[in-house]
């Protein structure tokens, strides 16, 4: 039983064909993390709208459990999340559900934009929601806090900043390495194939057993994607510093930067 549930959580992403068949079987709850107005224009059939802003307004575990229950998600319900923001918003929601103890959750491996481009079916019908009961079993081993970072780092944890390169050069948490979120995706999919991601990690001399903590600019979206990229290649000990650099900065913790270079002036924006 334990092994079975582990196998389930290994399914970090799900492809469109598998999701479509799960939808036909009505064996899955699909969450659409886009804004309400975008959702209303059309969404994957049966998907429930759960804009990220709703979650961020109150992401306390109790509130998240309430959300899950109101969507008809119980402890055993397979959940698939998608967005139109290269999987980052969906990742943040997925991580949050995982944090309250939900085990069976996957990212759709393409964005809604790609889904549409592929000509797959969409719907404007609102789904029917039946209330279910969901337990609360917090998973603190996937969460990192500001206090946790430096001691963990001293014990060998790798701190990964998933913001874009120029932001990273401008300032970052001391000792962090940069894996910009754009590195994680391939042309079509929100995550690169496993063998490519593995190579990127190997090139950095990070061993599969390492503890890794991801963070980004403010609310843990880009680093949520970073979290799932690492999970997808079988890394077990990955944590998300969900309050990310925004909190770190506001706590006036030490910051590192790449000094004496005007890299911003290379941008043609």
């Amino acid at each position, binding site marked *: 039983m334990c092994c079975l549930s582990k196998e389930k959580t290994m399914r970090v992403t799900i492809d469109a064909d598998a999701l479509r068949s799960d939808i036909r079987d009505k064996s899955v709850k699909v969450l659409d993390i886009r804004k309400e107005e975008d959702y209303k224009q059309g969404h994957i059939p049966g998907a429930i709208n759960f804009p990220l802003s709703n979650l961020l307004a109150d992401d306390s575990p109790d509130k998240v459990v309430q959300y899950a229950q109101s969507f008809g998600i119980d402890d055993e319900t397979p959940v698939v999340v998608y967005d139109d923001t290269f999987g980052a918003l969906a990742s943040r929601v997925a991580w949050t559900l995982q944090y309250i103890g939900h085990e069976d959750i996957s990212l759709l491996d393409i964005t809604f934009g790609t889904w549409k481009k592929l000509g797959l079916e969409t719907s404007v019908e609102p789904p029917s929601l039946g209330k279910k009961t969901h337990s609360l079993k917090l998973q603190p081993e996937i969460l990192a806090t500001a206090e946790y970072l430096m001691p963990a780092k001293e014990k060998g944890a790798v701190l990964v900043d998933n913001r*874009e*390169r*120029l932001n990273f*050069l401008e300032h970052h948490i001391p000792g962090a*390495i*940069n894996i*910009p979120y*754009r*590195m994680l*995706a391939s*042309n079509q999919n929100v995550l690169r194939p496993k063998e490519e991601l593995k*190579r*990127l990690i190997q*090139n*950095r*001399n990070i061993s599969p057993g390492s503890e890794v903590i991801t963070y980004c600019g403010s609310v843990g979206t880009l680093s949520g994607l970073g979290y799932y990229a690492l999970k997808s290649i079988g890394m077990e000990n990955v944590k998300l510093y969900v309050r990310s650099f925004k909190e770190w900065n506001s706590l006036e913790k030490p910051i590192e930067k*790449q*000094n*004496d*270079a*005007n*890299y*911003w*002036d*290379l*941008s*043609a*924006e």
Partner: protein
Amino acid sequence: MPKPKINWAKVEESEKFAEMVKLFRQGKINRDDFRRFRLQHGAYGSRMTDDYSMIRIKIPAGEVYPEQIEKIAELSESFSIGNAHVSTRQNFQLHWVALEDVSEVMRGLTEVGLTSREACGNTVRNVMCSPIAGVCPDEIFDPTPYAMAATRFLLRNPMNQSLPRKFKINFTCCEKHGMARIADIGLIPHKVEVNGKSQNGFKIFLGGGLGAQSFVGHHLEEFTSDEDLLYTIISVIRVYDRMGNRENMARNRMRYLVNELGWEKFQNIVLKERAVVRATQSVVIKLELDKTSEVLRKVSISSEMPSHPTGFPRWLKTNAVKQKQPGFSIAFLTLESGDVTANQLRIIADIAREFSAEGRIRNGFAQDIVFRWVRDEDLPKLYARLLEAGLANPGALTMASVIGCSGTTSCNLALTNSHRLAKEVQRKFLELKLDEDDDLRDSTIKISGCPNSCGQHEIATIGFYGGGGRLGKDMYPLYTMSLGGRADEKAMLGLICMKVPTKRVIPTIIKIVEIFKSEKRPGETLDSWVHRIIDGNGGPNVKSLNDIKELLKPVVVAPTIDQDKDFYVDYGNDGSYHAKTGRGECAA
């Protein structure tokens, strides 16, 4: 759709690179050996850190295909800063790539046949060729196949893996367009009659180059037949490899060897070497010239166009010229200091497919991009497309198209932010519509962030190189200004005029234009006026460069830091200026 004809890549090199980075990080290879390896494969260290690289992607003859441009866009988003940079030697550069990802970028490049191999280091660098070769109204024949064949022969060739220093080869189309006299080997197509038969060949110039000390190249011989071309290139490289200075880093380019030996002696050695090379090659070696004639595509434009796009006449005047082939034009795309975003690159790739009958682009000599084989009647639509993408800046072929090296944005040697300054000057020129002024059209502004000449300041009408100045104990950024540089058949290096504080560069240029306007004779351009003065034929008010200097003095006066704090701050910085450099790995 045309596909790249030559695959320059080798996938093993990316695997090897990844392996070497790991060994280096584990301390199993020393820093100097690793640096040599890294440079050989086209990756520089970045300003103040070896943890990031600038990857230089070689574009032989500047010729690049849409799928290659799209790949560069993708790689810049994944591993760089979402921007690429077009260099003055027709390369694409990706900045601030993590050392650990360089191998991934190389791997991506191999998918589209590109390489960064020998783009840096003590090797033969990208072989350049005029971006309008093949369509230039003044050319005798198209030198592009020769540039490609020379690259094919030299890339990864053991003979040039460890030269005393870098080595540059430039092909041009004609006397007017190009840089034949400021390269180690510069070549201009030439034709002679031999026994009533017309023979293709080149005028070859040796030992030119820009740097802390610059030289104009020497003409090797009246005519070098194309059969002798490869022998000549091999001979020059062999002589340089044998005799060049390997001790003193500051004097080991070939131009110093030529200067030390004296031209006649060097010329003799090269000609003798060529006789030996010719006589002792055990196998006849030849350049593999691609002589298949180009098949032009039928172009069909789907772009919608507003009936009268605003700004079109100005753009047409300053960015487009007619080809030698009737009915077709060349359109130049000017980029601010050569910078272009990933999205813009994708649009450029689309435009090449849609508008160019040859279905590809060339990188130019001026950090610019060139569309050729555009039907004259399609130019308004092309302009409208560029406008949408923010790529329709006018002034590409005018003084408004300013060159700026990478400066303190990424280079270890830079003293000033020349990159940003070039952008600022270009913006000011366009704002004042100086690009439309015919008197300024054939003049140039080029800016380097240090005395090394990656920004090519010495061949500019108005050239600048960066440094630091001081008033009391306060330091401020400044540039040394030279006037009268040229790279054409009357090639000469600019003469140093005076020091100009960074924040006075724009007012100084504008003042020079003003002085010129009040002094010029009918029909005279800025460039020809400056040369009249240098030649000693100035007017009553401005007789010499010294007189120009006198008139500029009030513009360049340094205020105290209390009077003007901004004067002491370089572009792109918050705090006061301090000169700071790291270890150089060489240039641009």
